[in-house]
């Protein structure tokens, strides 16, 4: 089944989706191998990956990563495109680029554009008026080519304007044509309440390491509360960052590798399996290596 169909079916069949954000083909493959139902590409990780920060990322950079990840996995991929890179016309181009790049879904949020780096500083977001966001969502609907391509909206209004306005926007965005809405409740009570007040499927974004006390849900909690998606937005980067830094520092400090030769052989085989070397060996054996 195509990733777009998998996601469309999941939405219509009430299937719960465990999502993690990858930022390249390799981490995407690792997540798929581990058993995630779906992948995301998020701005925070990609912005850090390129050392530009999310608000300075270009659409082209996100589309390029989308192509890399989408062609390397078979599970659906949703791509966070920030504020859609501008006004309705820019949003339309953004949707077309990301759909053409092979994503199964796209997310556009109601933050201001150009985005400001300050929103990373304890979520000091600035949001646009709801009616402007509704125009953007209508532009998304107009731009989509494949009707199975899923349009997700994200509201940051629970932080900027409070829970009630956040919920109002969720339902407004669903009415305008968004099929899933990503939300950021401020407290556990809000997180529990939101799915009861929303008229459509909600996507909970776990911002691990957030400094504002925003709840990080377990899978059991997310299901119990009534969310349809639970995503780990930056866990890939945090865990890789820790592991790689430990490895580097150990080398510099001791002059020796942190990983033993036996262990390294096992890991290397894993890496090669994720890359898909075995299949390529088979093809070469049947062709060029046969001669």
């Amino acid at each position, binding site marked *: 089944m195509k990733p777009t169909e998998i996601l469309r079916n999941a939405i219509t069949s009430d299937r719960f989706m465990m999502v993690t954000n990858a930022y390249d083909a390799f981490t995407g493959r690792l997540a798929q191998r581990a058993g995630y139902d779906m992948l995301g590409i998020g701005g925070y990780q990609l912005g850090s990956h390129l050392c530009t920060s999310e*608000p300075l990322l270009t659409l082209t950079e996100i589309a390029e990563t989308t192509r890399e990840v989408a062609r390397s996995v078979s599970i659906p991929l949703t791509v966070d495109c920030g504020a859609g890179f*501008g006004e309705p*016309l820019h949003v339309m181009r953004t949707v077309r680029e990301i759909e053409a790049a092979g994503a199964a879904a796209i997310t556009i949020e109601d933050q201001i554009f*150009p985005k400001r780096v300050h929103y990373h500083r304890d979520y000091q977001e600035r949001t646009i008026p709801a009616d402007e966001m509704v125009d953007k969502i209508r532009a998304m609907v107009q731009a989509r080519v494949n009707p199975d391509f899923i349009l997700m909206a994200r509201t940051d209004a629970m932080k900027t304007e409070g829970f009630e306005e956040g919920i109002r926007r969720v339902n407004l965005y669903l009415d305008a044509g968004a099929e899933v809405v990503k939300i950021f409740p401020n407290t556990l009570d809000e997180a529990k309440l939101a799915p009861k007040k929303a008229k459509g499927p909600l996507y909970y974004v776990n911002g691990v390491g957030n400094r504002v006390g925003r709840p990080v849900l377990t899978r059991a909690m997310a299901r119990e509360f009534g969310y349809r998606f639970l995503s780990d937005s930056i866990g890939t980067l945090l865990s890789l960052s820790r592991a790689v830094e430990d490895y580097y520092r150990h080398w510099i400090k001791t002059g020796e590798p942190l990983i033993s030769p036996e262990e390294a052989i096992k890991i290397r085989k894993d890496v090669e399996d994720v890359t898909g070397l075995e299949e390529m060996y088979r093809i070469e054996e049947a062709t060029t290596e046969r001669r």
Partner: protein
Amino acid sequence: MQEKKKTITERRKKLRELLQRREKLIIPGAYDALSARIIKGLGFETVYLGGYTTGAHLTTTEPLMTLTEQIEVASWIVRAVDLPLIVDGDAGFGDVLHTIRTVEEFEYAGVAGIHLEDQVFPKRVSYHKGLEHIIPLEDFEEKIHYALSARQDPNFIIIGRTDAARAVEGSYEELVRRSRALIKLGVDVLMPFPSSNPPMDMVRRFRKDVTDDIPMLILGGPEYPTEEYWNMGYNMVIYHLIGIFTATQTIQRVFQAIKENHRMPLNVEEYAAARAIVEGAISLSDYWTIEEKTIEKKK
């Protein structure tokens, strides 16, 4: 390919020298590497890449074009010709931080200079029909200040452009005010008009009111000879669109003819002559020489 190419540093120094001498320049607009090669082949000293042309080349339109796309096209040209390349850096692709990234990316790409304007960002497609909006001068001053400080190479040229002459929020007085502010901030070149068809009386009057000794860049239109602009005090005249316009027109004519007549509108000699222009521009014979000396020798 065989001749030694000028380094990025040499190209920028060259442009800086031309500007310091207030040299009267004709700067043709390329829209890809091949058109830039043709321009270099004609002996021009500098080449230009506009935003309009990249937007047209990619069919996205300029306001929907990304920084990465403009950098990519600029990089093709930088690799293809060793002339100083001036690029349209639009509105810096955002706020101050985005403008800093814009300067860094273009400088890293090997471009010799960019122009930055006071249009709103995100840019709107309506500005192509003259409906244009500009940001407050204080915001623009901040952008330019940070753009100037963001360069590593002091010979990387920052051209200040104001669209106040025709923006909804602008006026002639505002154009003069913004131009003086840009000069005061230390831009290397001033570009006081956003299009190739400003009212000529305004163009003339502007140089009588703003008499500063600073290189002035203007987009040349079809109505006037280059000397007209030079004589009015605009030493850098860019012909930014005629390349892509006429190339496109030729493609349209040729395929229209093939569609109608089921035959090329060129004879054998004309076809060979056209081919020779392209193959000369991409230096095919240089590659043949290398192959003859290496892999083809072994056969």
